[in-house]
């Protein structure tokens, strides 16, 4: 039971959102950014790599799905896979270069890449639509042998599709995090020097982490574009990278479900608070500072500590 706890929690979130929320688009957004945060978490929480480049992979996913559904049409499932592939490729390039440095220099390199990609996206208006982005991205129904199996037209219908993709990705990422690879990444995060000394090729391991992260983030970008119908320039902006990192840290590094918490927190707060008070980002800034000072394990850590406290209280009452 404990083994499957995180997956069940993720499943619970997926099932509960339609029950409690009005907007299918908002629910989809939670899952989409959860995917992006999980991709970021693989790098930060598992490998110890703080990457500001997630916006690059997210943007690549968006642009790819836009182009493969409008200009060079492909069947939708294939288009999605291609978007993931482009995300993975982008991550391979960024990762391969950035890994050459460590610590702060690594972070700076990912920042530089994020900026470079932004400007390439801004100027290559033929492919990316520049400042306008790419528009009118359709949401093709799932069609098999001429029969429409699943229409994705309404927000909640699309949510169903996103939910399936999300749960599948969650399950796969869990497998990765528990695998020999995932465990080796934890060692790299704990003591990189020793990991290298006992025989592991650090560069290739980090690169593989980047590629998986890029694929997941690319998927998120593609789904986002399908949901909104546009692939805007802002998906490739520094702000997107920062936002994804913020969600990951607030949720809690090193734990996949924590990323779901982080995404839910950010997306729902943004939606709810921004109608109350346009300067809700101030609160977010304060939350970030609070997490850094007192809650390094993020929302998940908070929940975990509360649960432990509750349990020991109950045990005491038992005696």
């Amino acid at each position, binding site marked *: 039971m404990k083994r499957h706890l995180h997956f069940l929690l993720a499943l619970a979130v997926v099932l509960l959102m339609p029950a409690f929320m009005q907007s299918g688009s908002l629910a989809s957004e939670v899952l989409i950014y959860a995917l992006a945060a999980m991709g970021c978490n693989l790098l930060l929480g598992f490998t110890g790599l703080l990457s500001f480049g997630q916006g690059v992979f997210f943007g690549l996913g968006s642009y790819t799905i836009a182009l493969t559904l409008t200009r060079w049409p492909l069947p939708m499932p294939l288009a999605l896979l291609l978007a993931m592939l482009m995300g993975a490729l982008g991550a391979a390039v960024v990762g391969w270069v950035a890994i050459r440095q460590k610590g702060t220099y690594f972070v700076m390199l990912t920042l530089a890449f994020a900026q470079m990609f932004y400007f390439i996206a801004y100027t290559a208006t033929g492919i990316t639509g520049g400042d306008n982005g790419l528009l009118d991205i359709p949401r093709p129904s799932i069609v098999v042998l001429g029969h429409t199996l699943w229409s994705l037209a309404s927000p909640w219908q699309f949510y169903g599709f996103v939910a399936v993709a999300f749960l599948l990705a969650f399950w796969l990422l869990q*497998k*990765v995090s*528990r*695998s*020999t*690879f*995932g*465990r*080796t990444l*934890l*060692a790299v995060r*704990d*003591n990189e*020097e*020793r*990991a*290298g*000394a*006992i*025989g*592991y*090729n650090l560069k*290739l*391991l980090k690169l*593989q982490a980047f590629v*998986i992260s890029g694929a997941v983030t690319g998927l998120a970008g593609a789904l986002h574009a399908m949901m909104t119908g546009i692939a805007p320039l802002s998906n490739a902006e520094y702000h997107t990278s920062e936002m994804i990192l913020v969600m990951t840290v607030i949720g809690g590094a090193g734990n996949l479900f924590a990323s779901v918490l982080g995404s839910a927190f950010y997306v729902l707060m943004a939606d709810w608070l921004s109608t109350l008070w346009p300067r809700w980002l101030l609160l977010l800034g304060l939350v970030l500072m609070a997490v850094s000072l007192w809650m390094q394990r993020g929302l998940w850590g908070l929940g975990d500590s509360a649960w432990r406290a509750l349990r020991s209280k109950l045990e005491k009452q038992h005696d």
Partner: protein
Amino acid sequence: MTSPILLEAIGVEKYYDKFAALGGVDLKVRANTVHSVIGPNGAGKTTLFHMLTGTKSVSGGRILFDGHDVTHEPDHRRVQRGMARSFQVTSLFLSLPVRENLRLAAQGVAPAKAFNCWHEPIGARACADTVERVLDKLGLSSLAITPAGNLSHGQQRRLEVGMALAAHPKAIFLDEPTSGMGVDDLDAMKRLILSLRDEHTVVLIEHNMDIVMDISDTVTVMQQGRILAEGLPHAIRSDDRVRAAYLGNMITGGKA
């Protein structure tokens, strides 16, 4: 009857800008022996270790291991060839359990498996046999699930040796394994190192002369980046040059 030479350093040099940390070192280590390297601080012992294990690259000279020229191979390559080292300053995976530390070290000889993103490391994939045997040898079986950061200093030093052991090395390099250890732990460490000789070749840097004189087959003395003397423990102990290097008052102890 001497055993074959497993490891050889030929004219090894290491320069940091103009400073010669090693100025042409020749060393022969025979298989299944305990070969100690001693010398005053700054003699270049740890630098020599770094050259032999591939932690850092040489400025000149060659290193031969098991018949291969490994001079330009990085450390993770040499691990696969059968060289494993422990660290002078404990460098474990502090947040991970003892068993996981050893599993990682054991897995390190087949690092390709570390890219497997599908299978969990359990059973044979976790090199379970090796890990259990090493745990037993170290006397740490009861602490298998404790995070390495929670062990006592002496236990951590033993785990350090275990990390090298888990890699099934032909040659095991121990860099001051007893540093900072109290009297109780020292005996356990001495017995552990002695027990290694049958299956491995041990190259040892040590300051504790008690251990060096007791368990070494060969002692090499270094000074200022060069070899000063080499030979059997008792010969080294009575060597005038060595006494002068140590100012005559550090080579006491041992039963030889």
